[in-house]
Structure formats: structure tokens, C-alpha cells
């Protein structure tokens, strides 16, 4: 209901702006309708993703000095999950849908001084020069809902000041007043970020229930806010930037487990707490051309403000012991760790395009020693004046332990064919094949090979 109210408010603001500034450009409505369907290739071919997304984008430029922009997603997403007769009365279960404001902001150009641009409202602040996966892109929360859409972020409510020192140099300050956590994957990959629980209890004891509480930062200016600063410049035809973020990791870590006896028959309950941690992030990136090859590099140094320790209290299971039975393990040390990307791309004369990236540390990985290596590669070939595109070579190779590659690797292959059926209608069919062993994210996709169909109509 709140979301619906917010949507109506955004529409009202948009139309008010239109009414008040008749001399400025009219309100522009654009967007797209996209259907995204996926099934597993393994019999009985379970349907694993059903999304019909209507993206509505409203934009209005006001006298060349300001812009209003918003993007709203109205979606039918998910498979009907009817388990009880009462579910049949619930349209939200039979036909799940949601409404989401991705962005809604006002941008003021030349605010107070001609070199300052100010953006206020929910906005996407995309930092970094790498392709899709950017270690320095840490202001907006990750949107992990569709885990296969790597690098997707939600918009954040923010104040964004961008001061242009010259055509090629600028200084940016971003303030996010409150913390917005990452949202986790849904569907078959819902548990992908949960560590596998491998518990062995003393004889006669069985696990009854696990409850997990999330300890989020308080929503006040002191505790929940995030600050980011960035300097962009150019040296010898290479664009570069240096950045700093004082913010939260949007993915929580397990910090407390308390075991309690549920009954006298040996049943055990576990009460867990997930907590977020604050960190300093120092970033740098660059992009340019070497001999016609586009090149980029991007690195971020993450420094946790505090050590993250997990406490496991087993005292209730050992009532006879005179002291509390508590184990402590360090989940994240207070030491710097680096995620980085280096990559390049090249456009061939035959309308082919090659993009290669090497990545150290995926978006969900943190802590020195926990970062895996990824090689992403994509070759596209366009035909018939860009109407038809094939990607015969697209995927990733992952190594999570170089000393034992045989048991710690993943290979992802994602061939794709797309066709522009009309100027505004794109149809694509792709496959996703996984093979791997070990604990990395992609290896855990093993067994979920799938076929994907997408159709997008832009208006």
C-alpha cells in the first residue's frame, strides 16, 4: 500500500511539474515491457523464473536547468505457490506481483554556481570503469533478486553533489542518510548466500528450529548514513578516478548463535543473529585506449572498521559445566583486502565484438583469503545491420583454490541469440550451463542448467 502511495505521489509530482512549467519540455513517458522466462534443461524441466516487467520512465527537463526523472517497475514475478485452500483466495499468491520505484529524483544543473550539479532523491550512482561488475560501485545496495543479473543495484535515497572543475575533471560528494540493505536472491537460488549448516549434535539431541534475527544499523543520522567522495580526472588521454566510501556492507554476516533446549526429549533450538559491518573503501579506476583496444582497470581496498566475530553459545547443551560453553571465531578480520578488475574490449571489422575481464573477488565475497578469481569472456557477432546477434562464446571460468583447481573451479557457458523483430522488439534465447566443484558461487549453480527466453518491447 505504501509503495502504491509513493507511486501516486511520484506521478502527482511529475504532472504538477508539467502543469507549472508550461514553457519547458513536455513530460516524456518511455519505457519497456519485458518478459523473462526460464526453465531447467533437466527433466521434468521445472519452470524457475517468470517475470513480466513493465518499466515506466517519466522524464521532464525544466528550462534546461533541471530534470525530473523516475523509473517504476510494475511486475508480475514468480510462480504461483498455492499450498492451502485459503491460498486460492489470495491473488498475491496465485498471481504474485509487485511495484517498485527504481529511481525518482530531481537534478539541478548549475545549482548556485554554474559548475555544480545537484541530484536529490532516489538515484542510481554508478561508479567504476569496468563492465557490469565494479568493485568501486558501493553506494547503492545490490539487487540480488535475480542473481544471474550480475551487478544489478537498486536506487538509493541520496544527496549527490557533483562539482565540475573542468571538462575532464570533477569532484563528487554523495551522502546517503540511511542504510539500505542488499535484497537477497529469490526462486531456486534463494539460499545461495547461506552457508551450509553442518551440525552434529551429541547423541539423543535433534535440531527443532532455527530462528534468525537481523541486527540492522539504527535509522538515525549518526549510525545509518553513508558518505562517498570521488575525484575524476584525465592523464594522457586516460580517464581515471579516485574514490572513498564510508559505508556499510549490504550483506549481513552471522555473528551470534545461541543453542537452547526446546523440550525434555533432546530437541534443540538455535537463535541466530545476522549483523552488518561498516567499512572504509578506497577505490581507483582508469579507462582508455591502447592501439585501438579499449582497456580498463578498477580496484577497491576494503578496510573493515571492526573485526566481525561469530559467537556460538552452547551452554544450554552442557548444563553440568560450571562455566559458559562459548566458542568465538573470527569471520572477518580487521585487515585490508582488495577486489579488482582488469579488462579490455575490441570491435572487429566484421561487426564482431570481444570483451574480456579478469576479476578478483566477486560481489558477495569479503575478507582476505576468501576472494576467488574469475575470467569473463564474451564474443558477439552482429549480422544484417545489427538485426541479428549471436554470442557463441560467452561465459566465465572461476578458480577458488589455485592449489587444488580440480576440486575448486567453475565453468559457466552462456551462448545467446537475439533478433530485433521490429525496431523496438528484441527477442533473445540463451542457455546457461554450469559445471563446477567447491564452494564458490558459480559452482553452487551446478545442476541448474537452464534455457532462457526474453522478449523486450521498448516504447
Amino acid at each position, binding site marked *: 500500500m505504501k509503495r502504491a502511495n509513493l507511486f501516486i505521489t511520484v506521478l502527482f509530482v511529475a504532472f504538477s511539474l508539467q502543469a507549472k512549467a508550461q514553457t519547458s519540455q513536455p513530460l516524456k513517458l518511455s519505457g*519497456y515491457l519485458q518478459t523473462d522466462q526460464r526453465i531447467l534443461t533437466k527433466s521434468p524441466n521445472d519452470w524457475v523464473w517468470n517475470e513480466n516487467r513493465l518499466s515506466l520512465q517519466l522524464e521532464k527537463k525544466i528550462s534546461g536547468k533541471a530534470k525530473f526523472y523516475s523509473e517504476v517497475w510494475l511486475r508480475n514475478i514468480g510462480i504461483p505457490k498455492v499450498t492451502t485452500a485459503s491460498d486460492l483466495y489470495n491473488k498475491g499468491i496465485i498471481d504474485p506481483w509487485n511495484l517498485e520505484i527504481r529511481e525518482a529524483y530531481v537534478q539541478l544543473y548549475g545549482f548556485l554556481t554554474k559548475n555544480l550539479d545537484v541530484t536529490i532523491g532516489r538515484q542510481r550512482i554508478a561508479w567504476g570503469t569496468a563492465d557490469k561488475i565494479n568493485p568501486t560501485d558501493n553506494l547503492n545496495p545490490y539487487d540480488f533478486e535475480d542473481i544471474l543479473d550480475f551487478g544489478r543495484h537498486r536506487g538509493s535515497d541520496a544527496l549527490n553533489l557533483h562539482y565540475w572543475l573542468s*571538462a575532464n575533471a570533477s569532484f563528487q560528494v554523495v551522502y546517503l542518510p540511511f542504510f539500505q540493505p542488499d535484497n537477497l536472491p529469490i526462486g531456486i537460488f534463494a539460499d545461495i548466500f547461506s552457508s551450509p549448516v553442518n551440525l552434529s549434535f551429541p547423541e539423543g539431541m535433534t535440531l527443532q528450529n532455527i530462528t534468525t534475527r537481523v541486527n540492522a544499523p539504527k535509522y538515525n543520522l549518526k549510525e545509518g548514513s553513508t558518505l562517498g567522495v570521488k575525484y575524476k580526472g584525465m592523464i594522457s588521454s586516460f580517464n581515471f578516478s579516485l574514490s572513498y566510501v564510508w559505508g556499510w556492507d549490504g550483506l549481513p554476516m552471522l555473528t551470534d548463535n545461541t543453542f537452547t533446549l526446546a523440550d525434555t526429549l533432546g530437541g534443540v533450538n538455535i537463535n541466530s543473529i545476522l549483523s552488518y559491518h561498516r567499512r572504509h573503501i578506497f577505490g581507483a579506476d582508469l579507462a582508455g585506449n591502447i592501439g585501438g583496444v579499449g582497456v580498463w582497470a578498477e580496484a577497491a581496498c576494503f578496510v573493515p572498521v571492526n573485526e566481525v566475530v561469530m559467537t556460538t553459545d552452547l551452554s544450554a547443551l552442557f548444563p553440568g559445566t560450571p562455566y559458559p560453553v562459548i566458542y568465538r571465531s573470527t569471520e572477518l578480520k580487521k585487515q585490508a583486502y582488495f577486489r579488482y578488475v582488469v579488462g579490455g574490449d575490441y570491435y*572487429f571489422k566484421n561487426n564482431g565484438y570481444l570483451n574480456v575481464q579478469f576479476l578478483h573477488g566477486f560481489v558477495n565475497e569479503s575478507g582476505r583469503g576468501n576472494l576467488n578469481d574469475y575470467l569473463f569472456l564474451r564474443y558477439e557477432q552482429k549480422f544484417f545491420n545489427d538485426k541479428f546477434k549471436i554470442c557463441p562464446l560467452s561465459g566465465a571460468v572461476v578458480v577458488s583454490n589455485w592449489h587444488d583447481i580440480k576440486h575448486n573451479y567453475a565453468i559457466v557457458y552462456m551462448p545467446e541469440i537475439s533478433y530485433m523483430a521490429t525496431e523496438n522488439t528484441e527477442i533473445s534465447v540463451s542457455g546457461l550451463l554450469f559445471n563446477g566443484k567447491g564452494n564458490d558461487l558459480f559452482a553452487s549453480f551446478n545442476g541448474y542448467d537452464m534455457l532462457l527466453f526474453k522478449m523486450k518491447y521498448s516504447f
Partner: protein
Amino acid sequence: MQTLKFKLLTAIAILLAFATKPAQAQNASDILKKVDDVMYASKDMTAVNKIELTNRSGQKDYREATVAQKGTSYRIFRFTKPSSQAGISVLSLPDDIMYLYMPAFGKVRRISSSIKNQNFAGTDFSYDDMEAKPFMEKYTPKFLKEDAGYYYLELTPKSNQSAYSRVTMSVNKEHYYLVEMTYYDKGNHEIKVANYKFVKIGNYWNAEQITMKDLKKQHTTSLVMTDVKYDNGLTNDDFTVRKLQE
């Protein structure tokens, strides 16, 4: 006496033969420089480009973009139609620096200069063809011939990265605007032909319509310039990353 006269005539003929070659080379450069002067006469220009693509079976697709250009090195190209491409913008700056703005990703990306190898947005023009760089900087001209209305030149690319081995060009003798260009691939096959229609707007000759035909694919792109405005007082500040994402 006859022998001496013959020798003198021969000497004059040889002298003339040697003398005409540099004169023609000079002539070709002069002509090409004048073509550049016509093409880039204004300080700046803004226009709307209406692009019509026609395939071999006659099916048509349309694109529309606004273009702003200053001198021979600064240009912003923004697609406004079709909806699937609307908002995609390309900024070209000196030293082959190019940026691409994709609204869907909300950020500006530096583009590899190898993109010049490719067709521009599905048209029959390559990024290289669309570049606002003077011909004299890109090609070495050679005079081929002339007739009552036109000069004919052959241009050889200075860069070995060019997709073409040579380009032939016909130029209007009176006003020095382009009439036709024929492009040859590295195997010296005729691959594309561009026809130009110039009209005078104020003090400047404007390429109102350019039709590029890909001879192999039998695909044609017609680019019509409308709402052309010259000398708008654009500065380098109008061709920045800041402007690209506005």
C-alpha cells in the same frame, strides 16, 4: 634542322610530362582542401538527422538523432528514435577519444577507438565515415580527371587501420562540394557508394541528404539533415561528459 626540332619538341614534351605530375598532385590537394573548407565552413552546427534504412527486399527501418558539432573534432550524437535506442549518445573528442552514454546503465563509458571499424548503429555508414575529420587529415589525394562539371579524385587512407584500400570522389567544380564517393575494400572491390545532395543554407553548403549503398548487402541508408542551424555559439563546454549525460 628537322632532327633538332624533333629533339626540342621531345624535350619539351618530357618536361611537360614531368611538370604536369606535380601540378596535378598539387591540384588534387587544393581541391580536397577546398572540399574540407566547404564541409567544415561553419564554426558549429546543430541538426536533426533522419535516417532511413532499406534492405534488399524493400523493408524500411527508421532512426532519428540530434547532432551538435563544433569544428572538426567535437561532436555529440543523440538518438531520439526508435524507442529501443532513444537516449543512447556518443561524444567524440579530439585524439580519438569517444564516450558512450547508455541510459539503461546510467553511466558514461569510454569506447574503444576500434569501434570505427564497425557500422554506425546498424546503418551503412561506419563510425569512420561519420567522423567529422577533414579529408586532408585522413587521406592522400590523387587527381584522376575532370569533365565539364566535376573533378575526380582518388583518396588513399593514411592509416593502415582503415577498412578501405582507396576511395574515389567526384567534386562539384563550381562550389567544391561532394557529389559522390565510392569505397573500395582491401581487395580493391567496390563495396559502398555514397551520393550527396547539397543545398545552400545562409552562407554555407549543407549536405541535406546522403545516401549510402552497401553494394554487397544491397542495403541502403539515407541520412536527411533537417533543422540545420549554423554558428550557434557552441563552446567546448557543450561537448563534455557532463553534457552527454544531461
